[in-house]
């Protein structure tokens, strides 16, 4: 081999190596997948009487919307198959009294249970629902009639006191670090207001919130791929999307899928006032029936070309952005 041939060979090897690096595919379909959850207007309106015995306002308030749990499952059954509401497919039951597992492929939330720094608020506050701390104080003290009580049995009526308590407990100095209230200008209007919360009113009067499945492993129907030659991540049938909102209990205001027992959530140790701030139960997507109670709302339809279609959205194209609606209110 003469020198020129040798150089040519080396150049080709170098180029093929580089090209190989550029086109390398890991062989996994992992994408950050996004979608929208629609909560009916009615779910954001609390009915009944306020603390003074007057009828509550008919104006909606997204503080009425609890954490929305979203999961992707092998399939979703309609109401009255597994439960009275649409429910993910359930695996076999191995133990008496313990229902089968849904084995979710993944999931996320829109808003999550967040400790609001007073024991009275443990398991009652969802992130992304209050514009500021004053709104939180008004909501619990004046609208729900569930006064926020401090460790020394004083009513907490000042939003600023909640804020400072959080700063002290969490050792932070900004709302952005607490992440309970509106803390970032999501819509870019240079204002921090209700338009920067998790749910925003849409043209129909309902409330929309976006969700993100970060780095989601995509699963698809292998038989369909084999038999029909579909392309995974593009047009092969993938997983089904299902969601529910854990609405606050009408009496206690607590979320069912929250636990605040020993070692659960933020631990507060102050003199003789020790407690835990609560957290989501870690199997809420695995056994949702245990945590879905009266008043909660469950996904039952999705948007298809401008029309609402009954059933669960089947994700095929990982770049699709489905819109699902929590239209099924769980009744007694």
């Amino acid at each position, binding site marked *: 081999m003469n*020198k020129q041939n040798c150089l040519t060979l*080396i150049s080709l*090897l*170098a180029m093929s*190596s*580089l090209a190989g*690096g550029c086109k*390398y595919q*890991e*062989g*996994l379909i*992992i994408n950050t997948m996004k979608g929208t959850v629609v909560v009916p207007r009615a779910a954001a309106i609390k009915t009944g009487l306020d603390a003074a015995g007057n009828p509550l306002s008919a104006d909606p308030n997204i503080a009425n919307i609890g*954490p929305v*749990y979203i*999961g992707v499952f092998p399939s979703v059954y309609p109401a009255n198959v597994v439960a009275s509401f649409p429910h993910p497919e359930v*695996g076999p039951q191995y133990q008496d009294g313990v229902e089968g*597992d849904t*084995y*979710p*492929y*993944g*999931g*996320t*939330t*829109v*808003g*999550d*249970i*967040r*400790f609001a720094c007073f024991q009275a608020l443990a398991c009652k506050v969802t*992130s992304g629902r209050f514009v500021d701390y004053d709104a939180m104080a008004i909501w619990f003290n004046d609208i729900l009639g569930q006064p926020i009580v401090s460790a020394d049995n004083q009513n907490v009526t000042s939003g600023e006191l909640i804020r400072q308590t959080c700063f002290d407990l*969490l*050792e*932070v*100095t900004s709302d*952005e*670090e607490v*992440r309970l209230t509106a803390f970032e200008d999501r819509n870019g209007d240079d204002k921090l207001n209700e338009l920067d919360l998790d749910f925003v009113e849409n043209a129909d009067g309902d409330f929309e919130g976006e*969700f*993100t*499945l*970060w*780095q*989601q*492993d995509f699963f698809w129907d292998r038989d369909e791929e084999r038999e029909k030659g579909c392309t995974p991540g593009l047009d092969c049938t993938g997983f089904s999307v299902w969601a529910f909102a854990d609405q606050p209990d009408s009496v206690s205001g607590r979320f069912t899928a929250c636990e605040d027992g020993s*070692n*659960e*959530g*933020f*631990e507060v140790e102050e003199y003789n006032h020790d407690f835990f*701030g*609560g*957290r*989501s*139960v*870690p*199997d*809420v*997507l*695995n056994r949702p029936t245990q945590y879905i109670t009266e008043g909660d709302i469950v996904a039952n339809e999705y948007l298809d070309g401008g029309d609402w279609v009954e059933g669960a959205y089947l994700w095929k194209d990982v770049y699709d952005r489905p819109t699902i609606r929590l239209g099924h209110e769980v009744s007694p």
Partner: protein
Amino acid sequence: MFRIRNYSLALIRLFAAMVVLLISVPALAQTEGQLHITFSEAETGSPAYKVTVTLTGANLIGGAQEKLTDVNGEVQFNALPPGQYELEALSPTTAAQTFAGISIQAGHTNYLEKDLQPVGTAVEIDVVKQRAVDTSSTTSGTTLSKDVLSRIPTGRSYQSAVSMAAGVTGGGGNKNLGGGATNENTYMLDGANITDPVTGTFAVNFNFDAIEQIEVLLGGYMPEYGTSLGGIINIVTESGSNNLEFVTSVYYTNGDWRPKMDARYTSDGIELAPTGFNSQFESYQIASKVSGPLIRDKAFFIISYQQDRSIIAQNGIPQPRDYEGHYLLAKLTVQPTAEHRFTAMLQMQPTNIDNIVGDPFTKAEAQGRQVQGGFINQSRWQWFLSPDVNLDTQFTAQKTYIEVNSVPCTHNEDFSFHPCEAGEEEGNVDWETPGRLGSGGAYNSVNYTSFYFDDRWRYNASSKLKLVSVKDPLGGKHDIKIGVEGEQTVWDQIQGYNGNNLIVDTNSVGFDPETFTNYYWLEISGPIKFRTTGSKWNAFIQDSWKPVSNLTINYGLRFDNFTMRNDLGKPVLAGNLWGPRLFGAWDPWGDQRTKIATGYGRFNDTGRLGTASVLSASSFGSKLYLGEYFFGGDPPLGLLNTAGALYDFDPSENLNVGYDGMRAPRVDELLLQIEREVIDDVKVYSHVTGKFVRFQYELDEQNLVFDSDGSAVIGSRVGDPTTNYYRMRTPALAKRDYFRWDLGFNKIKARRWQAQAVYSYTNSIGSTTNSNSGSFINDPQSQYNYGPLNTDIRHVFKSSGFWDLPTDPWTQSIGVAFESYGGIPDERLYYGENNGSGFGSYDLRIRPRGTYLRYGSYYTLGLRFQQSIDVRKGKFMIDAGSTNIFNNRAPESVSLGFIDSSNRFLTRSRQNPLQFDLGLRYEF
């Protein structure tokens, strides 16, 4: 007949070469240098043909070498041990001329162009001036010569000395080289890889006086240097010479002589703990080295011994960390004929470290001992088939061991070490009694908790065929190297817990010993034993082509094959990797004063056993029992009484899996270097480097489902919401982009002084700092992975120099080193309710890594003064130095999760205090 015989000889040689190439396998960084001279006749300017050139030097084993210049007046000497040389040129048409002071460094070719005067001209000895610009090198890095190492105040270890090089950051023994992680460097000893095969960190402490030079390579290096995502530290040892030399020294360092103040405030406003009237920071080093000829010109030797002892007690820690290491080196180089050179080397480093737990809440009986060390055994054969062809074959066996257990007990009450019980045998190690760990301010007590025995082996064989001065029909010459290498690594480890239990205590009220109680305890499966292995082989070809005298093209290709096996012997990491390199250096005016170099190279990572071990099948099993803290009771429940309170059970199996589609990490590098010798001996330069690391090994999570910000688990893919199921991947997202621009000057040693200064602007952004950093375990947190890394120290300035004062015969030398580092970026971690790592913890990001703060800049200044006094048959030297003269104790690391009530990070460690060291040396 003559032709046939010659042909047969060539065939035999070729066959022998092939056999050696096939049966042995590679490594081969440079340990020697080359000298290339071009002679011209001064009168006519034409090449000086057939000049007899004789090279001599004290370090030149094999004796003087003699060659004739070719028609271009060129001659090249190869495989020259580093050192000073003298050259004599003789020809019928020119005057005999001598050139002295020719310096040879390992890994470099010294190009000289000289005129020869006509016969009859009176000529003096020409003391050759070194060139400040190496116009044929495309390597990015720094060579630290013995001159520098012996005069600059950087500490007497190779790990600390390399911090002088531009592009080297980070503290401790393992630095960040060229933006790489601390476990992504390659450490080489005389050309053989001696990196810890498990961790990818340094494995050897080394005799400082036996170091001839240290090459710090950050990029642009050729395939023979192997693979590294970070950089390469190549230690070249002395080999001895025709001069018998003896050096012995004692150095003592003390950090307690610094100014004492009750408290100090730093730029970040944190009140420091008192600087420590009771703390201890002292060390000493005793070293001796003897080297010289066994047989003049034929056999050189060097024997070196060094003992390092340091006793360091951090504030409030009653038991000082006591380090005692013994480093022994013996090396023999023999060249019986002009054709063959043999080298054998043995290095050992038995070391004992007592009181390894750096925690103020540890009682003496709960302290641990670490015994470590090992050996390196190298054998090398250099076969000079012709003046321009040689075959370099090397075999290296390396063992590193680490043994950790309780400090053996003693009855000697003068020691603050583990006291023996009455009747207990002196030096006893208690393997049966479980150690008790304290939390909430409770003491670690009763015994050290665990034991660990670890043996790491590396067997490496390599062979390199080197052909120099190969003429090219298109012009110029090639220096070609072809090499093959094979390597086997083994990691044996035994881990266990004393008494197969681990007991954890706490103070119910923090730091109140009156509330001391048992928190929980773990019953742990018996000792586990692992063997993880790796095998690699590689081959390379490289060429340094000078088509014309002022242009050098360095190019090559390296192929690496590697397989790592877990404890079941199952291959878990494997790859076939190509690493092309193409660099060029141009001297536009051909005056050896300017260089413009650029190029591209790919450097691959062939993995570490530690990475493979993540995918081993075995692990500890444990049962968790809740202690009296949870149950109370009076009398409190004892250990045995809580047997019914089994809370949790973990099986003894490792759930980690490796994804089949993994590929090996790699870095692609681009560089641009411009250098100019502006005045004699002084060059200014601009070096720009871009390194792009991709596909780092990372674990992701296949089980837990998180809420929107990753703060809590809301589901499980396998029906187990308490356990992580990790999967090893090499995702495209696991990456690092590094850019550095060096601006500096370098004054090479001349007129008794040498100096260098360099400013580096750095931008280093990525999603993962090193393998298995944990960046991809929590899916929602992936949005915050990408950000400035710990190597993103924006502004760094380094300078150093020395001056040998003209006060002969009592030579004095002054050395100075100054380093300044801009702020290191860091992040803050927030509370997550239950993010898959336990019952809530501070490890949640809410913004990209590295964007929360930058530390303030910090600097260090060191001075060194040496006074040598001629004595009978040698000289006596007093060597005094100090580091961190202004006692600038800036934070080096902080606790990431917590801040104090003033919204300040809690500083975890700071720069070492002002230290003084004093050494006495005797040399002949």
